[in-house]
C-alpha cells in the first residue's frame, strides 16, 4: 500500500528522516520540471528545486497534519520560481513583463525562427518542442504558472487556486488569457506551426 504524503509528513515531523526522503523521491522530478517550465532554464531550475526541498525540510513544522501536502509543496515552488523571475527582471532588461498594470500585448517577441524546410518528422518534433519551450518564456509568469499547473501537472481549478493563492475565477481567466498568449507567442516563434500544427 502506498503511504500517503500526509502520513509521511507527519512521520517526518516526528523525526523520521526516511519519510522525508520518500517524499523527496516522490516529488523531486515533478518539482524540477514544474520549476523548469516556469523558468525555462535547467540549471536555475535545479537550484530552485533544491531550495524548495530545503525549505520543506526546515519548515516541516509549518505543515498542518491532515492537510494536503502537494499544494503546499507547489506553492513553495511557485513562490520561489516567481521570486527568481522577479530577481532576474531587476538584473536584466528583459521583457517578460508580468506587472498587472502593463498591457498584455506589449511583449517584445524575438524574431521568428527560420522554419525547417524538408526536415524529417523527428526534427520537426524537436523544433516544435523547442518552440513551445521558447514561447512559454515569452508569456508573463502570472499566466505561465496556472498553465503549467493545469496542462502539465493536471491540477484542477480549485487546486490551482490554492497553490497560487488566487480566486478560482482568476485561475479561469488567467488560463483563458494564458492560452491565447501562448498560442500567439508560439506562432510568432514558429509560424510553421500555425498551419502545420493544427
Amino acid at each position, binding site marked *: 500500500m502506498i503511504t500517503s504524503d500526509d502520513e509521511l509528513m507527519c512521520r517526518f*515531523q*516526528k*523525526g*523520521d*528522516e526516511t519519510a522525508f*526522503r520518500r517524499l*523527496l523521491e516522490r516529488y*523531486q*522530478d515533478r518539482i*524540477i*520540471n514544474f520549476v*523548469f*517550465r516556469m523558468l525555462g532554464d*535547467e540549471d536555475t*531550475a*535545479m537550484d530552485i*528545486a*533544491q*531550495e524548495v*526541498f*530545503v525549505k520543506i*525540510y*526546515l519548515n516541516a*513544522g509549518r505543515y498542518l497534519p491532515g492537510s494536503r501536502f502537494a499544494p503546499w509543496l507547489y506553492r513553495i515552488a511557485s513562490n520561489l520560481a516567481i521570486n527568481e523571475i522577479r530577481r532576474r527582471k531587476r538584473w536584466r532588461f528583459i521583457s517578460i513583463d508580468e506587472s498587472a498594470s502593463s498591457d498584455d500585448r506589449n511583449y517584445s517577441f524575438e524574431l521568428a525562427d527560420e522554419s525547417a524546410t524538408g526536415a524529417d518528422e523527428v526534427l520537426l518534433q524537436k523544433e*516544435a*518542442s523547442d518552440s*513551445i*519551450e521558447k514561447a*512559454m518564456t515569452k508569456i508573463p509568469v502570472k499566466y505561465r504558472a496556472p*498553465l*503549467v499547473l*493545469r*496542462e*502539465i501537472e493536471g491540477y*484542477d*481549478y480549485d487546486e490551482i487556486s490554492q497553490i497560487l493563492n488566487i480566486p478560482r475565477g482568476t485561475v*479561469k481567466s488567467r*488560463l*483563458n488569457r494564458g*492560452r491565447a498568449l*501562448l*498560442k500567439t507567442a*508560439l506562432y510568432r516563434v514558429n509560424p510553421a506551426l500555425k498551419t502545420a*500544427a*493544427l
Partner: protein
Amino acid sequence: MNCSKIKDVLSAFIDGETDSSTNATVQAHLLRCPECRAERDRIEKIGARLRNLPPLTAPSDFEYRIYADIRNRVSSVHSRNRLNWRTVFVPAAAMMVGIIIGSIQLRSPAEIAGGGAGQSMARNLISMSPVTTDSEGLREYTIDTYIPGYSTPVTVDAIPDENEMVQPDRNRSGQSGNYASSQVNRYVLDQVPMRVGYERTIY
C-alpha cells in the same frame, strides 16, 4: 452564445470546469461552428505539446545536495548562536555512542532519544537521526535538540578534531542504557566528521 462568448469559456470548457448548462451550449455551438472547433483543437494541441515536452530528471546527487545545503544553513545559523561546545559536548558525545549504535541497528530517532543518556543536558536531546552518507562514505548526523531558553536554532558544535572525540568504549555505551550493544563500532564513530543539531519545533 456567439463565437466570441464561446471563445471566452472554451478554455474552462476544455478543462471540464464549466457547469452543465454551459457545457450543453458550447457542445451545441461546436457542432455547427467550424471556426470554434478549430480554436478548440488549437488549444488542445498546444496543451498536448506542453505535456509532451521531454521531462528533466533529478541528478543523482540531488538528495546529497539538499542535505549539504541543509547542513550549511544549520551551521551558519549556529555561528550566530554559538554555544560553548564543551557544555554540550559531553552529553552529546554520550548520545553519539547511542546514535552510532542506533544507526547501525536502524532504530528510529525517537526510540534512541527515548532511551536518553540521563545526563543533565541529554534529556533535552529529543531526537537524532543520521542525515546522509557522503561520497566518501563519511556519515554525518543531525542532532535535534531542544534547549530551554533558546528559541533560535542551536548547534551541537562540530568536533574540532577527531582526537578530541570521546571514543566509544564498552563502559560508556553501557552507561547510556539502552544502547549497550556488542555492535559498538569504533570505526564508524571515527568517521563522523561533524555533528550538527538544531532546535526542532515541538508539536
